[in-house]
């Protein structure tokens, strides 16, 4: 600890922090542009100047100065005030006065700080410099004349995103932030530089000129585009979601979100189901809720309960899954599944299907074995933690499965389960790293579980975890990385068939009626002879084969519970109303149960959540990590030789919302260079 005096107030601060951080601990605001807590220190904007003694009699950049014992810091002396005014005047010399047409207006650091620390007048009479705009892809709009060269974007792209594509070329007045050779940034986290940019040089391209910050209502919620459960802020105007921004949560997403989380929201405006539909003479026709329910009732009455199946999709919330499960039980069916991709996951022990290490825990690990997963595409934010761990403590990574540029080096060990067997038997050279590691971890992706021998793979992975000391009293290195926001919640509420060896195709086989709860990614061919009820928010694959469509709500339109891949229960908040006649999902199922004469016992969301807690205690403890007991799971049934295949090929289109999104279609075209069919192709 070092003793420092800040503006006459004495306090003890940890050694090794900077003067800027010490000032923050003392509750003093230090203006800054280039400094950012999660990036390396650049020290080039000079806005954070303070007076420090002992030291030379001139202001010092507090962001790059380590605290020393006995330091006296002044943050509001005349010298500091003059220095800030000078820096501000210099920064504004080449900054255009175009705030009225700048998208950053109203949430601009430069605007705010020039109001607070500037002089309000410029003595500069010469021409301002002009810089050509750059095209760095479909997400980030550039207006480089506004750039003040803080290099936050360069540091983020290099350090956090891990794709060295952005740099500062030229020198002095001619310095420019650029990719030099025109190209779209290839990172899945690229749009975070829009948030980082303290001025209007990098703004959001899809959101350009759409709204001013003071017009928007802000709702804190949880993302449903992947299984990480990033904390987000949904900014809406009227009934429309205008944009999605990250919220800080150091345990999950720090302050980053993936480009899909941020930009798929324009898909919420297209292809929406806003009224019930009933198929009459082969054609889907709009209907009233009563007509839709009547059509379902007519069928339910003549079908054996055991011949009904229900599948929950990747963005289904826990409330609606519980309601649907209860309804299915009342109808006499146990054919339910939330693993629409066909994954076989053993639910005997919770520790066998969650990310036990936790996302923040990755930073403590020293050796990591990735099995059948590509975290860069399946969970970009989690991948940035792996990268961070490699950058800071040299995490050693081994990979079994398909190779990919993960933004950090790894050792390719093999392609399929045989390599797992080798590691288990100690025949693979990577085994010694796991054995010698203090906190080893392994990550099983869906690529390792969407296979017939999934239980055997689970068993093998569990044995490796046991043998290499991955599970101790305060460390659990066994992890499953999910790709679907609904998955862990579905497993927690028991939305799985009674026979654990049944996969989704077994569940729907022979079913005369299939209830799809926002499930669009199962192969629809197998449903051709069934009566299909589709409840969801987008006219995607499921709606096309449906006989009755019940319009539900997207994740931004309901107050709903999701459990992320760590097993953390989080509650999303309703930001806008669902369109037209669409309703929150659990209320639809509740109303349907009434129509079918199997009325569910709860009629408020509170009562439903009581029921959830009754099913699984975990729902009474939101936002927390509840360590799971290390139980037994998997089965020693022998593995096949088939290599692990990664589930996600096109990161930008994985669900009905992103498939309907124009922005995501642009990303697919401009970044991946492929023309995937969008949801709007009919």
């Amino acid at each position: 600890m070092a003793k420092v005096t800040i503006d006459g107030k004495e306090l003890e601060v940890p050694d090794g922090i900077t003067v800027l951080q010490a000032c923050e601990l003392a509750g003093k605001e230090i203006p800054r542009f280039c400094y950012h807590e999660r990036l390396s220190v650049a020290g080039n904007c000079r806005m954070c100047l303070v007076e420090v003694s002992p030291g030379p009699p001139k202001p010092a950049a507090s962001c790059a100065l380590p605290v020393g014992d006995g330091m006296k810091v002044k943050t509001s002396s005349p010298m500091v005030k003059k220095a800030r005014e000078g820096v501000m005047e210099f920064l504004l010399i080449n900054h255009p006065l175009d705030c009225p047409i700048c998208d950053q207006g109203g949430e601009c650091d430069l605007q705010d700080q020039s109001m607070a620390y500037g002089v309000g007048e410029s003595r500069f009479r010469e021409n301002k410099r002009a810089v050509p705009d750059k095209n760095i892809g479909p997400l980030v709009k550039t207006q480089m004349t506004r750039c003040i060269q803080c290099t936050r974007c360069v540091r983020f792209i290099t350090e956090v995103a891990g794709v060295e594509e952005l740099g500062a070329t030229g020198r002095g007045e001619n310095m420019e932030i650029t990719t030099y050779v025109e190209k779209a940034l290839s990172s899945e986290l690229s749009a975070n530089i829009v948030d980082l940019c303290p001025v209007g040089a990098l703004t959001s391209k899809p959101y350009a000129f759409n709204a001013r910050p003071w017009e928007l209502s802000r709702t804190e919620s949880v993302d449903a585009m992947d299984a990480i459960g990033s904390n987000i802020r949904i900014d809406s105007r009227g009934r429309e979601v205008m944009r999605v921004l990250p919220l800080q949560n150091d345990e999950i997403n720090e302050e980053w979100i993936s480009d899909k989380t941020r930009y798929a929201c324009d898909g919420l405006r297209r292809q929406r189901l806003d009224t019930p539909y009933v198929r009459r003479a082969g054609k889907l026709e709009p209907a009233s809720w009563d007509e839709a329910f009547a059509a379902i009732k007519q069928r339910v009455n003549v079908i054996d309960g055991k011949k009904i199946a229900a599948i929950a999709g990747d963005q289904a919330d826990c409330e609606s899954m519980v309601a649907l499960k209860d309804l299915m039980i009342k109808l006499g069916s146990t054919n339910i599944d939330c693993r629409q991709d066909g994954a076989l996951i053993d639910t005997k022990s919770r520790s066998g299907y969650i990310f036990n290490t936790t996302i923040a825990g990755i930073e403590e690990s020293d050796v990591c074995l990735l099995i059948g997963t590509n975290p860069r595409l399946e969970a970009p934010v989690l991948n940035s933690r792996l990268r961070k761990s490699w950058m800071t403590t040299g995490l050693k990574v081994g990979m079994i499965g398909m190779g990919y540029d993960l933004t950090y080096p790894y050792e390719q060990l093999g392609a399929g389960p045989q390599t797992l067997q080798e590691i288990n038997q100690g025949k693979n050279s990577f085994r010694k790293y796991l054995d010698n590691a203090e906190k080893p971890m392994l990550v099983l992706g869906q690529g390792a579980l969407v296979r017939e021998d999934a239980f055997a793979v689970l068993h093998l992975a569990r044995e490796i975890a046991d043998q290499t000391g991955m599970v101790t009293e305060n460390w659990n290195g066994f992890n499953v990385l999910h790709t679907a926001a609904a998955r862990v919640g579905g497993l927690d509420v028991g939305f799985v068939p009674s026979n654990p060896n049944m996969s989704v195709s077994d569940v729907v086989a022979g079913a005369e009626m299939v209830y799809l709860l926002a499930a669009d990614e199962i192969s629809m061919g197998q449903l051709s002879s069934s009566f299909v009820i589709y409840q969801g928010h987008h006219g995607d694959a499921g709606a096309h084969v449906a006989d009755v469509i019940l319009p539900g709500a997207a994740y931004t339109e309901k107050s709903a519970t999701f459990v992320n891949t760590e097993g953390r229960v989080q509650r999303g908040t309703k930001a806008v109303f669902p369109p037209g006649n669409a309703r929150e999902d659990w209320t639809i199922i509740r109303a349907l149960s009434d129509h079918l004469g199997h009325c569910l016992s709860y009629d408020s969301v509170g009562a439903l959540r009581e029921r959830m807690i009754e099913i699984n205690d975990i729902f009474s403890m939101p936002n927390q990590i509840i360590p799971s007991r290390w139980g037994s799971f998997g089965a020693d049934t022998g593995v096949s030789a088939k290599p692990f295949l990664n589930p996600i090929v096109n990161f930008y289109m994985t669900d009905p919302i992103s498939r309907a999104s124009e922005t995501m279609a642009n990303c697919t075209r401009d970044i991946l260079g492929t023309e995937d069919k969008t949801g709007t192709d009919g």
Partner: protein
Amino acid sequence: MNISYQPEIFEFNTEQCLKVKKILACYPQDRKASAVLPLLDLAQRQSGGWLPRAAMDHVAEILEMAKIRVYEVATFYTMFNLEPVGEHVVQICTTTPCELRGAGSIMKTVREEIGVGPGETSKDGKFTLLEVECLGACVNAPMMQIGDYYYEDLDEISTRKILQAFRRGETPDPGPQNGRKGSEPVEGLTTLTHLTRG
């Protein structure tokens, strides 16, 4: 960037490859990037005095650096030319000492002699003229640099002579053009006059 003069590929020739090896040997294996400046210089020499993008990419590959990091270096230093230049690059210093000693008239002379202004290349492709800041030869002002050599203590006549010699394909003797040696006083020694030279 897709400008027609950019070659598709670049590779060091055999002779340069040996030099590359020698340069790389000066740095530890995991600090290869330190060799970026000498390698870019070699690449520029091989490419006729300028640095094509393909050459920067090739250097990045050899040094296992991200391409953008090499672009940053190459654009930072004014000694790297990122567009084709003439056979001889003429850099005239116009910083204060040279300016006081008549850099203006040297510039005028050169412009007349090669027919183009700063930043341009003469029609015959022989000369590219650049106006530069101090090259550190102030005691011999005014001066210009052609290729790797300094021509100092210039006046209009000597400047013309030098350029004409280059045009004929000769390389005139570099250094002061007014007869003095190095930066000795113009009018003979003023101190240590009793010592014999040795």
